[in-house]
């Protein structure tokens, strides 16, 4: 049977999308829709919020309540949406710069509150929309238009950052690993507290070209060859892990109560009091 995902969950008249040929973002956007379909969510009760950047254009194509906000602030807007109406399933789509540079403060605090928002970070290691400047996830030494002699900064590990800040579900996956990615997004949405899935994307146009990473296919193959599942990595000797990156679920804690549910108890406690 042919998939009806596009007909059912996308605004077909808004396609094709603006992303460059070979960009990994479309795969991640599709995985989000697939996860929503798999969970059987009511489209009217799903709200997708984004900031600014390449990834943040995704909500415009997706047939839900969609909110394209200001740079870095998606999680702050989303917090207002979720707190005001906890019945909505709130999903934030953001990029590496949007989430961890200009929006870094909102990321750690949304995680700390454990508010029921699912954040999908489209991490392509670069500011794509502005033409290839280094981001907080650009590897040290790599090139960007603002790192012409090699990036001096160390990089953030966004999934671990979120977990350390209090997110109760945190996972990393890549645009190559589309099936596990869909599964992680599904689990992240189903999770009651704050969840984050860092989806490693590819930007052949800016990051790839500048750093001589080859074609889009070569970049996808790099994801395939370089990312090792956390469980497999535990069994591998250290020398086999050189140059490899870890993906998988870093944290899944169902014991912490979600923010709006805690606040609801306060309302029940004081409602009607003078």
């Amino acid at each position, binding site marked *: 049977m042919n998939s009806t995902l596009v007909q059912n969950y996308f605004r077909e008249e808004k396609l094709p999308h603006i992303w460059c040929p070979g960009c990994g973002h479309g795969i991640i956007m599709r995985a989000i829709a697939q996860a929503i379909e798999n969970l059987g969510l009511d489209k009217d009760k799903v709200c997708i919020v984004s900031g600014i950047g390449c990834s943040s254009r995704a909500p415009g194509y997706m047939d839900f309540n969609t909110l394209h906000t200001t740079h870095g602030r998606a999680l702050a807007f989303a917090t207002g949406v979720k707190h005001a109406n906890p019945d909505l399933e709130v999903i934030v789509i953001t990029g590496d710069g949007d989430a961890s540079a200009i929006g870094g403060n*909102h990321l750690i605090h949304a995680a700390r509150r454990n508010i029921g928002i699912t954040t999908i970070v489209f991490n392509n290691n670069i500011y794509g929309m502005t033409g290839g400047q280094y981001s907080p996830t650009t590897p040290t030494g790599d090139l960007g238009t603002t790192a012409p002699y090699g990036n001096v900064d160390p990089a953030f590990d966004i999934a671990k950052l979120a977990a350390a800040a209090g997110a109760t579900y945190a996972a990393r996956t890549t645009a190559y690993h589309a099936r596990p990615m869909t599964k992680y997004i599904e689990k992240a949405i189903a999770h009651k507290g704050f969840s984050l899935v860092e989806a490693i994307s590819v930007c052949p146009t800016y990051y790839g070209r500048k750093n001589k990473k080859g074609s889009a296919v070569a970049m996808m193959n790099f994801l395939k060859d370089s990312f090792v599942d956390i469980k497999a990595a535990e069994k591998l000797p250290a020398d086999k892990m050189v140059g490899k990156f870890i993906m998988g679920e870093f944290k899944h804690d169902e014991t912490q109560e979600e923010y709006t549910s805690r606040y609801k108890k306060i309302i029940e406690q004081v409602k009607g009091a003078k």
Partner: protein
Amino acid sequence: MTEKNVKLLQGNEACVLGALYAGMKFYSGYPITPSTEIAEDSAVKLPKVGGKFIQMEDEIAGIAAAIGASLTGVKSMTATSGPGLSLKLENIGYAAIAEIPLVIVNVQRGGPSTGLPTSPAQGDIMQARWGSHGDYPMIALSPQSVRETFDLTVRAFNLAEKYRTPVMILTDEVVGHMREKIEIPEEGELEVFNRLVPEPGQPYMPYGIEEGDIVPKMAPFGAGYRYHVTGLFHDETGFPSNSSANAKYMLDRIMSKVNDHKDDIVTYDSYMLEDAEVVILAYGSSARTCKASVKKLREQGIKAGLFRSITIWPSPEAQIEAIGKQVNNIVVAEMNLGQYVYEVQRIVKSDALVHHIGRANGEVLTPDEIVAKVMEVL
């Protein structure tokens, strides 16, 4: 007859009671002197009426969450002061272009920068109007008393909902912190306006205007409309558009919401203006000082009058222009080094001279120095 609900309140407390009277169900903000009591009181009172309070991680998040909440259909508010307003500016522009009803309270304190955190000022007048980048409409109201803070907060919500635009309450440290006896209006005594929502079953154009309406009807997120909201220029469907013709249409439309409805939006007050030969023009707490100055000048046989802008933005243009024709001298008194005076000079088209008296050192203006200024210019 029922007993009147009389309370001794701070301006900041009256602001929260006014907001609740208007139907506020959401507050998000960040602590900052001298506005903090607004957050504290909202935190106490909102859950009692089933509303939501949240202290966000910074000022930017404070306004962002309030915008997000408003999109779900609730009346929301944020409050701040000087440095916080500077941080909120980008998202004020967002609320304006995306047409999100929102009330922003700015309890003005001495600036620039951290400035004089516990002292009054009226230094954010121009920032309130022009602070966010680009062209956008703005409504700002300035109370001079505790009761007026209550009333103008109700009004700010009404205007925000009616015109789908952010509305600012430009109060100051004096009004925010002074205590006065006020009578809380009974339910139904003041008008409360609720935003227009689409009729169920009808086709919905998120940014389209129906005949007879001033603004597009606003569907709450989650009610089945699944539309798109963006800070990019967008067409009536809500989706981004790069068309310059559309950008012009859209900007003209959002500007006209305010410009074409000044009769409804603009309010002002006056004291002994009818026979005045010199007029003192002021707003907020400074206007109270000026009233004393007018009395003193009258005692000396000088026919002085007071005009008070209650709506600061848009200005009471017709009234100020008429004053310019009535008198030869207008003295604008404000706690800054000259801001609203430029607006008054812009409006006055006669030969009347527009003078300024002000300071920005954290002290309020005194009646005597305003009297002295009037004597000097006459």
